């Protein structure tokens, strides 16, 4: 049975009304304890028709679809500052691959993956292989191994890489990875703070946060904009705004 899509929960107004009825208004700090498998912030913003990306019509899909297996492989680089929504974009790509029945590998060099949030992005965790190398060389070798084995999407998370380590990521590294990508017709998503792959990237995205959505005492998400810095198969200088919102945990199946 397909899970129902999350409905907007009446937020502060409803809560305030309830507290007022109970005579507790002003005595209670607003906030909700986090139950297991429940959203940390049980609110969601309904899609708005203000030019921001809405469900089912996410502009990134139009860019990625020609690069998906079995068409051809792609080296996709997503860069941006912390809290710019770059990791959310990588989650989105990984979740899309899993939904197509493909295997996804996540090479987490910085040990930053959070399974709870990843699951909320709609990804079946059992279809994802989480690799946590301690050395940058091991991270690159792991990504290559996963490609060679037949993983359709490999996320190489180098977002929090130290400055002295970027010097080890020479062009030959990306050349080799790109060859593996083309040979296996798979995709590698490189997640970083700054551009590293240079002209080897098939698609280069730069994510920039516009604002954090704090709404009357609740943090509800980020409003960002992705800019296409490099695109071998299409036009450059495209921009698309998007929102990343807190999403409830998936409803466990009755079984």
């Amino acid at each position, binding site marked *: 049975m397909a899970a129902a899509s999350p409905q907007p929960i009446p937020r502060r107004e409803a809560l305030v009304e309830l507290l007022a009825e109970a005579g507790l208004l002003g005595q209670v700090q607003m*906030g909700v304890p986090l139950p297991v498998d429940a959203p940390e912030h049980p609110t969601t913003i309904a*899609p708005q028709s203000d030019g921001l990306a809405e469900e089912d019509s996410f502009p990134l899909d139009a860019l990625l679809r020609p690069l998906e297996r079995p068409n051809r492989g792609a080296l996709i680089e997503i860069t941006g500052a912390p*809290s710019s929504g770059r990791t959310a974009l990588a989650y989105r790509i990984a979740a899309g691959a899993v939904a197509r029945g493909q295997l996804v590998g996540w090479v987490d060099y910085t040990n*930053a993956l959070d399974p709870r*949030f990843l699951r909320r*992005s*709609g990804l079946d965790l059992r279809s994802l292989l*989480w690799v946590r190398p301690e050395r940058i060389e091991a991270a690159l070798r792991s990504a290559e191994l996963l490609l060679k084995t037949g993983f359709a999407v490999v996320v190489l998370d180098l977002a929090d890489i130290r400055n002295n380590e970027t010097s080890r990521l020479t062009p030959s590294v990306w050349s080799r990875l790109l060859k593996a990508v083309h040979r296996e017709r798979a995709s590698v998503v490189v997640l970083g703070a700054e551009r590293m792959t240079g002209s080897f990237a098939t698609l280069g995205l730069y994510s920039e946060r516009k604002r954090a959505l704090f709404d009357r005492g609740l943090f509800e998400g980020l409003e960002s904009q992705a800019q296409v810095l490099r695109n071998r198969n299409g036009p450059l200088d495209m921009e698309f705004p*998007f929102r990343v919102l807190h999403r409830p945990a998936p409803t466990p199946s009755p079984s």
Partner: protein
Amino acid sequence: MPRVACLLLSDVPLTAAIRAEPELRGAKLCITRDLDIVSGWLRGLTIEQARTIEPDLIVRPLSIEGVHSAQEALMDVALSVTPRVEDGGALLQTGQSGVLLDLTGTSVQFPSERGLLTALDTRLHTVGLAGVRSGIGPTRVIAELAARVRDGGHIIDGADVELFIRGLPLDLLNPSDEILERLSRWGIRTLDELADIPRSALGARLGEAGVRLARRARGQDLEPFRPTRTRLRFEESIETGYPMDNLDALAFLLNGVSDRLGRRLRMRGLAVRELRVELVLEDGRAFARTIEMAAPTVEARVLTALVRLALEKHPPDAPVEHLRLIATPGSLETAQLDLFIPPLPAPAELAITMARLEALCGSGRVGSPGVEDTHRPDAARLDSFESNRRVTEQEIPRVLAPAMALRALRPPHAVNVRERDGLPLLIEDVRTRHPGLRILKHAGPWRLFGEWWGESCFARDYFDVELSDGGVYRMYHNLQNDTWYLDGIYD
């Protein structure tokens, strides 16, 4: 009418040596024990004597484990045809090995007995056993005699037994020397001559032993067919020949051992679920490693790669003199292909990759992310990766617009916080001594406490804060020791 087949290995030590080194087939090979040749060319001589006759003689020491493996391989071939197999060791002379197969019910799979013998021959070749004689008859004795007297598979029908035993020498039944001598003095030298003597006359002169021998000479079994209980343990081993400290050279030998092991398991329709590597080192110490397979496999290449990776990870600290692989069998996984879902990597390929990744990244660093059953938000675990798992259509979630991601900070960054009325205003990273970061916006606190029954008890106030460095962080106040931490960045 029952039918029995016999597979006879006439020179087991020689066969075992050729099985371990197939390139020796056809060579002038002898097997030695304590400088005496016990099998193969110039048997009965010492090595020195044999060398004077044949300078190019190839000498290999007797390997007891190799002999056992050859015998077990013979049993595996027999069991691939019928589950009712009897170890025929008691019937045979020293240095021989054989099995008897009850062919009841096998006609469904093998309509003709000639076809059955051909299939057995092919399978014997597959497991590396050469020079195995075979025969089929109405009883165990006749089947064994058929295998012993003629090469190329001899089939004896019930009606042809009298004709078959005519002229066969008595010593084929391995009688005692005393009985053989007495019968020889009486001029009885063949089975048909013994079979013609009346039972009472034979019993009066030779006793029960003589009567039993006469029954066998007539082609009658003395005991019913007794199937041997088989064990599901597969071993293959090899002597390195000299202390070997090079892993590449060891891998070369390992490949042959893995190949033999894989072929035997495939013969039984099984695969390696767990593999134990046992090494005997130069100084006599034992060294062992157990490798759990991500997916059962019989591929020699896979087994070799996994063992090699295990030895690279934990190398033995002395040269190796003996190598043994012990497989715990499991069912072979098969993948059902789907027309509409892209194919997944083969389980065996995935098993190698998992092993290589673990060797590369360290133990406990490869798997599927899992969510702990706790209220603690930063709890994460690593589950085993289900290589052959397919997402069913019902399980595929609808992929929506990007959802919020959190980049965990492991371990959490301790921070000093300046607060007012319990709410944070300014933070300073304890580690980097970064000058104070202003908190531009905040949400919270959300109080979480739990696991009060154990050491992992926690009590925290969680905040979401936007700092002046541009990041939106998850932060908590540990109420147990009044400390503050940043434990994740929203991204």
